């Protein structure tokens, strides 16, 4: 006889029971970096997620009697692998996909969510384009726009001031330049940029250019390697003598890397240990301690993802459309403070922080200011 439907499970029942009867587990798939360059972000995210689900389910790990069954896949930072993993997870019947440590992964997985009608909750990926990607895509972390808006606040009134952005010549850097131009330019600042090609080894020419521009505020958007060399060079060429310097605060492990200039930098921060204090924060802290970890930048994103997953399951069971609707417009308290999922584009409205690094061998961030979610809210980008 002719073969059955391609891709169909064996006719005689088999193992397929993905969804269905009461008591069956809710299946959540995670695609994130367990290895590769972003492995430490991934680890923090995963720890936060455990704490978050624990907190939201009050320690039961179950929603209305259904346990939450998490299947993890490592994308090693490679979007191609992430797509394969997500396909696999969706094929296995996971109706919620979460993770995406890097923006590349988030932007490649988001269309899959729409194609296959599953819920996708993006993780630490900061790209603005994740917001408003499609109806099925949400985010549990902050986006670049919010970072930049926070930096702007550090300068106070920027009208007539000169702002220079020192950024890597990459999508991440360009997004920052664009955001600074949009946010601070709109407030009357003159924004220029110095873009550093990825292949540049010695940063002296760029430091010289920055020095030559003599800006009032220098915004540094830098991710990854040779950060220390960059800061050292800026220091050597005397940039700090005349200019206020702002940059984003990365995970703890990077704090010693600012070298001698650490105390001269103003930091904007998404989240750090001691940035906020509320029930959710304490739950995060306690949950992490249980796992032998401590609060750090992306533990928040995992925790919030956990909260969102549980909320969606509570409201929608396995039904994706219901879950989506339940999340839209949802207001809740996360470790950072009160959060809101904006219905129009699924932006996660959230407070942001500014900080400095304390001197000494143990460079510890100190909170300077907390900015309300509305102050740093990105403009609405409706779904395409």
């Amino acid at each position, binding site marked *: 006889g002719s*073969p*059955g439907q*391609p*891709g*169909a*499970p*064996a*006719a005689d029942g*088999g*193992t397929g029971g993905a969804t269905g009867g009461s008591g069956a587990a809710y299946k959540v798939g995670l695609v994130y970096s*367990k*290895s*590769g360059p972003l492995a430490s972000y991934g680890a923090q995210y995963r720890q936060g997620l455990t704490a978050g689900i624990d907190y939201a389910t009050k320690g039961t790990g179950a929603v209305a009697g259904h346990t939450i069954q998490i299947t*993890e*896949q*490592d994308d*090693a930072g*490679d*979007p*191609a*692998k992430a*797509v*394969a993993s997500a*396909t*696999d*997870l*969706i*094929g*296995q019947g996971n109706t919620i996909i979460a993770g995406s440590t890097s*923006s*590349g992964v*988030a*932007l*490649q997985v*988001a*269309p*899959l969510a*729409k*194609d*296959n009608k599953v819920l996708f909750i993006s993780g630490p990926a900061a*790209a603005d*384009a994740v917001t408003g990607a499609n109806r099925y895509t949400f985010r549990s972390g902050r986006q670049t726009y919010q970072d930049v808006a926070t930096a702007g606040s550090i300068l106070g009134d920027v009208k007539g001031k000169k702002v220079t952005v020192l950024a890597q*010549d*990459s*999508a*991440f850097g*360009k997004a920052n330049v664009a955001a600074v131009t949009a946010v601070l330019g709109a407030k009357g600042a003159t924004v220029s940029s110095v873009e550093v*090609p*990825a*292949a540049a080894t010695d940063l002296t020419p760029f430091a010289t250019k920055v020095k030559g521009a003599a800006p009032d505020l220098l915004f540094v958007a830098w991710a990854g390697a040779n950060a220390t060399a960059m800061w050292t060079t800026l220091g050597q060429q005397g940039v700090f003598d005349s200019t206020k310097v702002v940059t984003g605060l990365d995970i703890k492990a990077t704090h010693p890397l600012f070298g001698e200039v650490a105390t001269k930098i103003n930091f904007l921060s998404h989240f750090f240990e001691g940035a906020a204090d509320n029930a959710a924060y304490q739950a995060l802290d306690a949950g992490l301690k249980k796992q032998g970890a401590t609060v750090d930048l992306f533990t928040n994103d995992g925790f919030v993802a956990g909260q969102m997953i549980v909320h969606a399951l509570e409201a929608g069971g396995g039904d994706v459309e219901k879950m989506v609707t339940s999340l839209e417009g949802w207001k809740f308290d996360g470790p950072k403070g009160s959060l809101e999922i904006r219905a129009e584009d699924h932006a996660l409205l959230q407070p942001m922080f500014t900080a400095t690094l304390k001197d000494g061998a143990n460079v510890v961030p100190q909170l300077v200011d907390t900015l309300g979610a509305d102050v740093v809210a990105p403009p609405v980008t409706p779904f395409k």
Partner: protein
Amino acid sequence: MTPPTDHVTERSTAQPSTTHTPTDVVVVGNTTAAPRNEEVARARGPRRLLGTVPVLVVLVVLGYLPYVPVELPGILPGRVNGPGSLQLLATCLVIGGIALSYDVLFGRTGLLSFGHALFVAAGSYLLTISLSTWALPLPLALLAALGLSTLLALVVGAVALRVGGIAFAMVTLAFAQAASIIVMRNPGGVTGGEEGRPLDRDAVPDLLVGVANAPYRYWLALGFVVVAWVAVTVLVHSRAGHAMAAVRENEQRAAVLGLGTYRVKLLALVVGSFLGALGGVVHALVLGGSNPHLTTSEFTLSLLVMVVLGGAGSRWGALLGGVLYTYADARLVEVSNAGFLQGMPDVVRQVLSQPLFILGVFFIVVVYFAPSGLTGLGGRLIRRSGSR
């Protein structure tokens, strides 16, 4: 380039290197990789027909896989015909086909190109861009992607082939690197920078979209492999194929015989690149978008690794190398996250939990125990068991 003197030729037959271009050592010229000679093995008609039998068997088996609902725990994620498995197999096949296209340059003609990624990426990106940005219908987009990529190959080849050996490798690398930088810079928002460009779902047939349609994407990938296989087969048995072998073995000699070596090499490069671009197109369709990893020199390098792992100058070798490499690359993540590691000492566990570590060690082991590639190893085993 100063034409090498007779003396150089004299010595190069006897010694592994020449003074003028010691670089040729690593290049394929005097290679010890000893590309196997299928021509020797399959000389006559009936033999050649017989040779196609295993190919057809494999093809039928592969084509039938989407109807096989069996679980192979540990080997494939879920059912063989589950979307996860089929997606994985499709990716393996596409990369295998691309490796086959690279072997046209490397194994057949002895051209060590570090820029093959450029053409694969061109196929992939031109497809996504012509679908989304230029809003072309699919057939036109395919035409545009393949046509422009081939044109690109012609131009790049015409320039790069002015030099040989490592210099050729590096000029192609420079082109590929330039393209990579351009893709990363995301000019006009068309390439999506390091985040890549998703495929416009509305512009491709529904059969290729969505998890449930994984079997069709798989068959598409299989189709590509068949096309590449047939093209390479026809090529190597043509006069051009023989000329390519001649260029690989001894370029100066080929020139003195009156073979237009430049044209032969250009032909090899264009054909290889066309197949590579086709692979890029299929890659974009199977994975649902283009991502900048395809533009990197690491990707070309991994193609080289695949071809040599499998066995240069052999269709089975290149294909098998590509498939296995991709499979290992994808599945080793599972190994490194496997539970049995938990019992091990910390350092060992930390190291083993890096998939790249396992992949690296895997290469070393394969290369070490099968220096002439997996197909070479297979041949050796067959011969040994036959002689006993």
